[in-house]
């Protein structure tokens, strides 16, 4: 049986097959069903990150971002997430203990509304011998799937206030909510506030069906820092070690029964207790860690000069299925360009000279030289 063929758009695809689906799912702008497990997914705002966590962030789940040392790139990813919510027309909820949420919202990146060029096709010089391969695109090191889901943003410009005010945003600023309350109160106040917003906005399905459904995006920057009243980052054996984990458990329960997504960032480089960090990772569905090269001695390593940091995928959830599709390349590096936050595979350059590559392979400390090296610290010259 030959399926009737529909032509694809302008993108270069290997196949022109299109699945004919009858969608029985509710259609909310900015979401689509996942091709892997049929869950409703939203874009995180960063297309490479969408590819890594299985096409997008499933509605009802939590994404944990472990912050880099100076909290610059994790804040950027959170801003991308919020900007994507503004563009898709979702509602936003932002809770912060450090900066006021309105200040964070003024710094969202501006969207690039016209399509970006899909790669420098014209600038390839003519090949003399392999000319049949001239027009084929180069091997992609950037991770992307064939269909685009999500928008691109220009980091150097701020989002226009008109676009931003079109979105409904709820803010929770901790100094306004508590004065002399003990520790557990700040997290439970936050959870209660989230529940209140979900109930009022009708995200939990209690609203009449006449009103169109929408998704609530929750952003929680720097959770677990001392400004929330938690000494998790300051001590090895914190006095209230369960406060944050109880909050995360409650948050996930609230999210599973409503149409909302949460992204939270935790300064994990300050948490020394591996058990607590493991618990926190388990309680969130998706978990990634950003490690920036700024301020460390890796900044001058010539292998890392194109990138701003490394990205580790710690956990990917199994939602209604037995196995998930993990990215097959574990060494990932990210780069914040003006128009894109790209996540690429980190690959070693070819081994041109004996001394140069051996020295730098040893300094990678096993981070990128997993499958290919055969004993890094060894003698340099093998004489036959």
């Amino acid at each position: 049986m030959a399926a009737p063929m529909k032509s694809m758009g302008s993108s270069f695809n290997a196949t022109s097959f299109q699945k004919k689906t009858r969608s029985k799912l509710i259609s909310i702008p900015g979401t689509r069903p996942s091709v892997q497990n049929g869950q409703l997914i939203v874009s995180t705002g960063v297309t490479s990150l969408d590819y890594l966590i299985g096409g997008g962030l499933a509605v009802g789940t939590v994404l944990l971002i472990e912050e880099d040392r100076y909290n610059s790139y994790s804040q950027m990813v959170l801003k991308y997430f919020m900007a994507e919510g503004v563009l898709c027309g979702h509602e936003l909820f932002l809770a912060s203990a450090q900066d006021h949420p309105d200040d964070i919202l003024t710094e969202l990146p501006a969207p690039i509304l016209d399509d970006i060029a899909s790669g420098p096709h014209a600038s390839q010089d003519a090949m003399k011998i392999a000319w049949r391969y001239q027009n084929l695109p180069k091997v992609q090191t950037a991770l992307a799937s064939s269909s685009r889901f999500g928008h691109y943003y220009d980091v150097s410009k701020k989002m226009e206030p008109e676009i931003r005010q079109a979105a409904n945003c709820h803010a929770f600023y901790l100094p306004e909510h508590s004065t002399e309350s003990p520790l557990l109160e700040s997290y439970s106040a936050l959870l209660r506030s989230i529940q209140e917003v979900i109930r009022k906005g009708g995200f939990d399905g209690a609203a009449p069906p006449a009103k169109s459904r929408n998704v609530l995006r929750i952003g929680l920057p720097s959770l677990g820092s001392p400004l929330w009243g938690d000494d998790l980052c300051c001590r090895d054996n914190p006095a209230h070690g369960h406060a944050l984990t109880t909050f995360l458990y409650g948050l996930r329960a609230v999210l599973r029964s409503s149409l909302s997504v949460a992204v939270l960032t935790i300064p994990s480089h300050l948490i020394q207790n591996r058990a607590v960090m493991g618990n926190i990772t388990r309680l969130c569905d998706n978990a990634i860690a950003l490690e920036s090269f700024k301020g460390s001695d890796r900044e001058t390593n010539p292998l890392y000069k194109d990138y701003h940091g490394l990205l580790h995928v710690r956990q990917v959830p199994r939602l209604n299925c037995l196995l998930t599709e993990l990215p097959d390349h574990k060494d990932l590096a990210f780069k914040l360009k003006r128009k894109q936050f790209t996540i690429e595979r980190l690959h070693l350059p070819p081994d041109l000279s004996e001394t140069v590559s051996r020295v730098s392979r040893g300094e990678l400390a096993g981070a990128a030289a997993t499958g290919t090296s055969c004993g890094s610290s060894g003698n340099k010259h093998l004489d036959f």
Partner: protein
Amino acid sequence: MLLELIQGTEGGGLIIIQDSIHYSGRTLLMSFIKAALKRDEVVHLLAFELHEEELKHELGHSCLQRLKFHNAFHDPLGWNENPPFTVHQFITSELDSLLTSNQHSKPVTLVIDSFSFILRHLSPSAVCKTLQQLKKGGAVKTTLGLLHSDMHHRNMVGSICHLATSVLTVAPGHQCHEAVAKTIRRAKSGKISQAVERFSISDDMTVKVQSKPVPVGSGQGEAGDAEVDPTANLTFNLRLSDQERQAKEKLALPFVFSKEKKSALLRPVPGSGRILYEPDANDDYDQEDPDDDLDI
């Protein structure tokens, strides 16, 4: 970058000087105070670890008169009656009443000697909250403090420095009168800049920065060393002269098509995978989808 911080051209914020037992950062702190006084700013000093006499000896009497000195050395925990300043007064409400006692419109600098003392007696989250409110509120332009990094757990130091706008780590230098300062500054846009400089402090508390900064990654110097040129030192010639290169390019390769045929073959084909199906007479090609009857 160190001199810019001392001159106060950066716009304030929270500056933390991290020192250790090998090199005390107190003289650097004094030079910051002196520079601020020279700029005619209002300087409040909360001295937990320094006696007034010692301060007079270091700074000089005239400076001490212009400084708003809060004696927290005598009775920091309030054991006797009427303590001049206790450590428990380090909360926003008390500090605000202290700092707004002057009606001047000059920028206020709050100097704390040291944070380590406060952290021993108050919980870190309370200290962080106070510092954050000092940073956000308009009362104080710059908050400056000393932190002894070897007195606390590494994470405690990290959590306090996480809030800071600039962190200066001082360490002894190679020569006896010099010291090395590593500065990390976080600009409002989120950009991080860092520098490592050698400096020395003269007797009148002015800081002189040596012109040649210490390179950040001095161990990486050997990696960029001469890349071995593989075409050198061989018994045969691997290089091409210009004439030889031109002759090589002119050579016509076998199995090469003419230009028109090449471009005809290279013209982009719309969609490389097309299924062209012509139903046969025997085929039962029904346009309907058999799954339409399913009712799931």
